[in-house]
């Protein structure tokens, strides 16, 4: 029994036989106090964030640059941005040759890091055979699953009904990417390439330049461009004028060539929204078609691969795959 040799038997005393005098005088109260403190340590945990927020900075849950006044119509109603994509006029740029122009214009305009396609042209199987091309920007949901799950309010809805991301707030947990049912969110897995002039850009969630490593990005719906009197890059880039941008509040939409009444245009052409059954209430509408208006046959599949030509101007640009 080697253990018995370590300590002589007279040392083998129970705690009761050697009480400390100082402890014996106030043991119970002191013990209770310690136990009470331990229990109290548990209690405030659920209210801690609120306490810290109150005690900390007074920075509101708004993007960098402070709250901006929403865009309004002339009589003061808040604009409700919308996009209508006429699939009858989209052939995935087969007739043009090269990658889809909407994606290319968006990439060039936003300096989107490779491999981000904020507006991505999916080729979708038709029920009766053949395919159609579906340019898919962020669907700008009115019940956005991504906003609901964001722990820090880095992604948020604006009064104009768009969903934006503040890369200065984003912690990179990527739960919004798990939540988005349209695969419309992109992560800066590495240090995104930044051209020298982009460092001078005035960053805002509406204009996500320069990109930040370890944060999520996506289509911002270009409200800054519309306010400045131009159309979003993708609308400008479309050679077939298939993409309309507009305001549901004023009931107006344009592809840069014609102006339509948004509601009549949607109703008369049986517009639909992607994955309507999910209840996300997107702001991006589609008019069914497969490019027939620009002479595409439903059974001519395939489109050119997207390219990121702007990254060539940055030395040692880091890229990755989807």
């Amino acid at each position, binding site marked *: 029994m080697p253990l018995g040799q370590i300590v002589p038997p007279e040392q083998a005393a129970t705690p009761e036989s050697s009480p400390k005098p100082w402890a014996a005088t106030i043991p119970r109260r002191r013990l209770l106090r310690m136990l009470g403190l331990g229990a109290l340590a548990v209690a405030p945990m659920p209210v801690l964030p609120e306490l810290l927020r109150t005690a900390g900075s007074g920075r509101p849950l708004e993007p960098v640059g402070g709250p901006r006044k929403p865009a309004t119509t002339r009589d003061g109603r808040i604009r409700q941005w919308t996009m209508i994509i006429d699939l009858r006029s989209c052939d995935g740029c087969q007739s043009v040759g090269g990658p889809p122009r909407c994606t290319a214009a968006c990439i060039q305009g936003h300096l989107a890091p490779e491999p981000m396609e904020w507006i*991505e042209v999916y080729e979708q199987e038709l029920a009766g055979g053949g395919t159609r091309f579906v340019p898919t920007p962020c669907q700008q949901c009115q019940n956005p699953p991504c906003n609901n799950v964001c722990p820090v309010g880095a992604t948020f809805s604006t009064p104009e009904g768009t969903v934006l991301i503040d890369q200065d707030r984003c912690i990179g947990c990527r739960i919004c990417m798990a939540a988005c049912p349209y695969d419309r969110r992109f992560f800066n897995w590495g240090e995104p390439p930044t051209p020298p002039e982009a460092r001078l850009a005035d960053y805002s969630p509406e204009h996500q330049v320069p990109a930040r490593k370890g944060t999520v990005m996506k289509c911002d719906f270009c409200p800054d461009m519309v306010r400045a009197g131009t159309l979003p890059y993708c609308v400008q880039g479309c050679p077939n004028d298939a993409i309309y941008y507009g305001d549901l509040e004023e009931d107006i939409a344009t592809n840069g060539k014609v102006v339509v009444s948004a509601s009549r245009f949607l109703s008369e052409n049986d517009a639909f929204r992607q994955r309507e059954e999910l209840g996300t209430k997107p702001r991006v509408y589609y008019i069914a078609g497969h490019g027939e208006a620009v002479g595409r046959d439903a059974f001519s599949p395939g489109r050119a691969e997207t390219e990121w030509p702007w990254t060539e101007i940055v030395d040692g640009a880091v890229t990755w795959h989807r």
Partner: protein
Amino acid sequence: MASVSVWQDRLEETALAPVRRTTARFWALVAAEVAVVAWGIYAYTVQLRDGLVVTGMRDRISWGLYIATFVFFIGISHAGTLISAILRVSQARWRTPVTRIAEFITVVALICGASFVIIDLGRPDRVLFVFIYGRWQSPIIWDVLAITTYLTGSIVYLFVPMIPDLALFRDRLAGRTSRWRTWLYRTLAIGWNGNSSQRRSLAAAIGVLMILIMPIAVSVHTVVSWIFAMTLRVPWNSALFGAFFVAGAIFSGIAILIIVMAILRRTYRLHEYVTEKQFLYLGYLLAAFAAIMIYANISELLIHGYKLEEGAEFHLRQLFLNDFAPLFWFYLIGGLFGPIVIALVPATRNTLGVVVAAVLVTIAMWIERYVIVVSGLRVPLMPYTPADYAPTWVEWSILAGGLALFALLITLFTKIFPIIAVWEVAEDHEATVSAIELTPPAVPEMPAPSGGTYS
């Protein structure tokens, strides 16, 4: 009652032995664990420098090994709650020698699990934003709250029942150990002298804590599952998810407890207290939870498979036939049916069998977490080719570092704190002995200290 006091001395010496004597093998083990942790830290610095691009995760499978390991660690943290609280409430006597180990596993697993969330962040420098800008609507905030509350509660629940044993260490090691230890035990024993009013306070405190800790523990793994279940992904779209995750958590918690117990019993010669009985009872619990897990899996997979909504067919094919088939079949056969078979067959119904079952379950449950995370994200949402995910050396290294940290903290703990709940074991023994004295024919069940046969 001379026999009782001899027995008590031996118990105390067994509890004190790890603190009194440190072998070269112990330091070799610590060095090995520190080396693996250091390697993991090196891998993490690579990730900090280059970004998450060094992992196998990409936009379409945006969570992987880190989140799976986070869920796994939070799961095994349920070891402490189950053994300590549930068995304490049900007054199961056999639990007393293993409670301390179980409670410490809880605290360590929570620390390791929480660090894997931070490792997974793209911007770990902004982790405090969770407190500054936290939104109640986000399941991640629910997790932060549940896990911090559970961690605080577990530390209290580890500490309070340890007070009498810390006082024992304080008294028995007075003047024979280093100054910081003397100070540590005196401080942590908070003046315990074992009088009746202190004992009453302690019993009351434990009574409150063991009730409080159970809803907290259940809530923790429920909200962990809600990180997944609150999204619009077909494989995660389940109201069962909370209960399924809690059951899995307790299941893996029992398994890890069995493994740690087996190692500590052998290292510190605890065979007199941690007997085959403890292993068998925990083995039965393991089998019972395996049955619950089988039920949950049938319920989950049958409902998806029967209706076969969009995405469900793809999901079931990748689980049973394609990418995840080897992992998933191992989980089903080795991890769920294995422990039941081991508990049922008399030839394997022993300590070794239970330990083998526990190892199977631990591996299977890590695999289950991995498959849930990765397969759930892999089901395509839009018309694109399904993405693939394979962890890189950085992810494997950080995983190894995390597991080594878990082992390291437990190793160090055994050298500082009493690994057996001495006073609880002694109380049980006294109760048993007095019961035996009332009924003379019975023979005390007391194997020799070195009588264990498990190797």
